[in-house]
């Protein structure tokens, strides 16, 4: 049982890192970013390239990888998304195009074979008699720290207040002198950085392949729907529910069925509570 508790926490933490960034950019800029999984893949591949090809130290590689993905996300928002933001359909299409392009570029540059991202912790740790891969425990700790830091940043800083203001009413915020466009770019950078960091810390124990963005995108999407689009606490709660459900199914039923957990969760949410666990009901 302790094994399920520990592994469930790790799965939930990685899911939360993916979902929080995804819901953040939707909550603030109303952008349904289908290239969010690509940020996750880019984080893992950047870490691989810096450590294995450029032989940089692991910690330097990790920081560089996250920074690079953040810059990529900001550039994408500025160059591709902003000109199309008036049409949500156009935004969907351009972000999907970015996702497919990143996937194909990774295929061409790195091939279809899995890549090995070195682990920060390369030994098992004994937790009350349960031997757990050290990297997984580190992933759990980093996820908690990063999400906590993001929460504090939004709640306690001036820039965080500006983000909250823009998320409530971009036009009113603009009239108050808050540069909404710049806020959108910063939030896209934060969102990309979180997904990139998830790729860097989960890469060593999960698969690093060009198609890794697909599963990440589907899972992040399902967590956000269950939690409520735009709600960060909702996403964290939903990540825990889905993460633990997946782990329970994998350990006690059949590991092949874990993928269906997310889909069942989406179905139940849409039927029973379409706004999600903590989403706001918007009347048209």
């Amino acid at each position: 049982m302790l094994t399920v508790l520990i592994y469930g926490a790790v799965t939930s933490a990685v899911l939360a890192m993916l979902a929080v960034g995804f819901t953040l950019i939707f909550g603030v800029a109303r952008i349904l970013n289908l290239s969010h999984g690509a940020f996750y893949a880019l984080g893992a591949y950047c870490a691989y390239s810096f450590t294995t090809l450029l032989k940089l130290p692991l910690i330097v590689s990790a920081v560089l990888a996250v920074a690079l993905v953040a810059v990529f996300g900001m550039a994408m928002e500025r160059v591709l998304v902003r000109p199309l933001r008036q049409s949500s359909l156009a935004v969907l299409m351009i972000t999907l195009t970015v996702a497919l392009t990143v996937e194909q570029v990774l295929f061409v540059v790195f091939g279809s074979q899995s890549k090995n991202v070195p682990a920060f912790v390369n030994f098992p740790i004994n937790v009350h008699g349960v031997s757990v891969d050290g990297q997984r425990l580190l992933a759990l700790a980093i996820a908690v720290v990063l999400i906590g830091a993001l929460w504090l940043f939004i709640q306690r800083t001036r820039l965080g207040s500006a983000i909250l203001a823009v998320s409530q009413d971009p036009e009113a915020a603009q009239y108050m002198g808050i540069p909404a466009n710049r806020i959108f770019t910063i939030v896209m950078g934060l969102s990309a950085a979180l997904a990139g960091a998830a790729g860097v810390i989960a890469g060593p124990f999960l698969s690093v392949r060009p198609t890794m963005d697909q599963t990440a995108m589907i899972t992040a999407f399902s967590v956000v729907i269950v939690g409520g689009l735009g709600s960060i606490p909702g996403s964290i709660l939903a990540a825990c529910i889905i993460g633990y459900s997946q782990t329970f199914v994998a350990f006690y039923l059949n590991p092949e069925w874990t993928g269906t957990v997310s889909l069942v969760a989406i179905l139940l949410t849409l039927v029973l509570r379409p706004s999600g666990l903590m989403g706001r009901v918007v009347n048209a």
Partner: protein
Amino acid sequence: MRRIFPLVASAVFAGGVAMSVQASAAGKPILIGLDTPIQHQVGKDTIAATKMAIDEINAKGGVLGRKLAYVVADEGVDPQLGVSAINKLTSDDHVDVLIGGYSSGVQLAEEPHIARSKTIWLGVGAASPNITALVGKHYDKYKYIFRVNPLNSALQASQIVDFATHVVKGKLHRDKVAILGESAVWVRGLVPVLVKGLEANGMKVTYQQLFDESMTDFTPLFARVKDSGAKYLLVILSHANSDVFVKQLYEARLPMPYGGIDVKSMTPNFCSRVSGAAVGETTVNFITRAPITHKTIPFWDKFVKVNGRAPVYTAPGAYNAVYLYAWAVKKAATTNADKVIKQLEKADYVGVGGKIKFNKLHDDIDGPGYQNLLFVQWQKDCTRQVVWPKSVATGKVVLPPWVSN
């Protein structure tokens, strides 16, 4: 005279045309169509080995005075892509022979199209027995299908049972076995034979599970294997993500040795790619740098020299297939498929991984002197040792570093 001249001129013209047509037919290369997943190592090595064989044959003057050439179509691991590849090669490129294949599922989808095109297909990568079963059921329609390599999964299963009996039970004294494999056509055919064989030899299968090829977290499976009381883990992986599988198994320090079929672990850089996590894994292979036949070491060394890497199992298959086809065309003195098939059916050809001979289903056979599985273990510093069969062994099987007796 005026009447004769046009006739003579016509005859000379007609003769000239006929001669030029004949000359162009003689000069036209024999075209080999490669249907293979070009983004995978198995596909890259199929192409590299084919090119190597073609260059060697052309340097000696070709076959029946014609050079060999090849054209590639990507079949990926997708049946739809595979069917398109076969149709392109046979209908657009009009190849004389097809060489390739990797995924059994893709192969089975391609077979009706190969049969319809009446083009010989020499398989070098897919292992399902169903691939050649159709030759027995509808010979006239499917006689074009031959498997040069690898051994079909049923034969592989019986050789794994042999390894398990003599090495796992005999030397490591472990008689409780768990089986984990990917849920693929060839594995579903292999596992029942494997289980039956293991139990017939006094071993107990404590747990067996097939999983989806796209699975990325194997930790729950390892927990179940451990809980089952197994003392050895048999793996059957080809398309699945074995890099992650091996890394997670190492991180979990699963307390038992493991081995079986792991196609990605046949790749020479596999162990270093996973930072040494594969040390202790035993995986079957079809070729290694050992004097299996007089052609093995020259092939291996030349492949390494030309391509800068050691070959995976499709390379000897493709190399053998090109030579075998050239041999059969020479014997038949034509590229006519029906006549070449008759020669292939009689072949007892010495290839780079053993002799090649086809049974009634056009499937390559195993046995002494023929192609057999080699059990190769990753050992200290990511070196490889052949640990079974005894006749070609270069070292003894050892336990993974974290497993004690």
